[in-house]
């Protein structure tokens, strides 16, 4: 009953005699064949559990983001002194706000930034430069971009910003639809820590929301929460930039 076909059990000495007996006894052989078929069927169901898209890249990116070369540690030690001076200022940033700090408020705030005029920290269509720029700004740089977004949209630049003192990386794109200003963007990806709000999405399957002329999709992979927002279309339009749906 504990024998597993097509595994190391085939060469396990503990099963050798039993396997030989199964070959000799017709009834036992039939039972054994049924056991192996059932094992394979159940195993196939366990193996169908799909890993969220981009998860492997997320794991690797996080490790790269947390690896600090030795020479940088000296710089950080000096920086720690300066950081102590900023503590008072930072505490002020975290004083309670009158608005609730939930995900809808965060999403609405970021949507507002996208629709207003903002200055890009880096203007480029090169996604590697964008990641480097965000990393050098000590913003969130260990994100995983959906393959569809990389394929179907063109990056225009990035902004390192904050919400309630929490870092948010904003990457701007053009969807390909005509825009009034050729250099503007109509697609924005916001990346934050998954603890940005207590009710931030927990699933990797995007959840849609439309408000104030902005359609958005939100999802979480690992410890990063993503919002992809657009002014140029509805949910169907946004789908072609989103991660592939996981299949269970």
């Amino acid at each position, binding site marked *: 009953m*504990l024998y597993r076909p097509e595994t190391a059990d085939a060469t396990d000495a503990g099963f050798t005699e039993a396997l030989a007996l199964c070959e000799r006894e017709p009834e036992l052989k039939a039972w054994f064949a049924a056991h192996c078929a059932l094992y394979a*069927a159940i195993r*196939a*169901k366990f193996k169908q559990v799909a890993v*969220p898209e981009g998860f492997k890249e997320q794991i690797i990116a996080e490790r790269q983001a947390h690896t600090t070369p030795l020479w940088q540690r000296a710089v950080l030690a000096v920086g720690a002194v300066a950081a102590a001076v900023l503590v008072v200022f930072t505490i002020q940033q975290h004083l309670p706000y009158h608005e609730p700090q939930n995900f809808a408020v965060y999403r609405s705030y970021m949507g507002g930034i996208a629709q207003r005029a903002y200055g890009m920290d880096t203007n480029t269509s090169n996604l590697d430069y964008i990641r480097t720029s965000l990393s050098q700004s000590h913003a969130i740089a260990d994100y995983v971009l959906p393959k569809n977004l990389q394929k179907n949209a063109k990056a225009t630049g990035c902004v390192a910003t904050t919400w309630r003192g929490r870092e948010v990386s904003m990457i701007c794109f053009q969807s390909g639809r005509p825009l009034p200003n050729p250099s503007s963007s109509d697609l924005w990806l916001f990346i934050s820590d998954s603890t940005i709000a207590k009710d931030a999405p927990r699933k990797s399957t995007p959840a849609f929301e439309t408000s104030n002329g902005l359609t958005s999709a939100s999802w979480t*992979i690992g410890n990063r929460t993503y919002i992809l927002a657009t002014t140029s279309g509805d949910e169907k339009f946004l789908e072609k930039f989103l991660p592939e749906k996981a299949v269970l």
Partner: protein
Amino acid sequence: MGPGLNFESVVERFYEPLYQFAFSLTRSEADACDLTQQTFYVWATKGHQLRDPTKVKTWLFTTLHRAFLESRRRQVRFPHYELEEVPLDLPTLSPATVNQLDSAQVLQALTQVDEIYQAPVALFYLEDCAYKEIAEILAVPIGTVKSRMARGIAQLQSILTQGERESRRERQND
């Protein structure tokens, strides 16, 4: 870290089976991601201590299982409903019946198995680990692994059979 044990190659080889094991234990995508990421974080910081590269798989699965147990200890305990004692003879569950189910239904059945049997059963079906390795991962003697596996498998197959009988009755009543 020796050749072949660099971080990216370890992630490449094991992220999927680790995630599947974590998901079979937690049935939550978010929790499975957390456990898997935590495991690779520990690997990144402590994996250099492993001298025998053939033990990487066992090391990773052991770490993940420990993290899972730790997280369970912190959670509020939900009532555990005792399954009726299952007969030692296995129910007549056919591969055809299992093929009609989807993955979620099989994993849901696993949740109804006695908790102490769930990890051994998941490893039995998911991974090609030798029983000695499974014993190391679960930190129990090999004899205990086998008896927990045998009981867990019997429970799982009984639950799947019961589920199939109930579905058939419902179809007949329609």
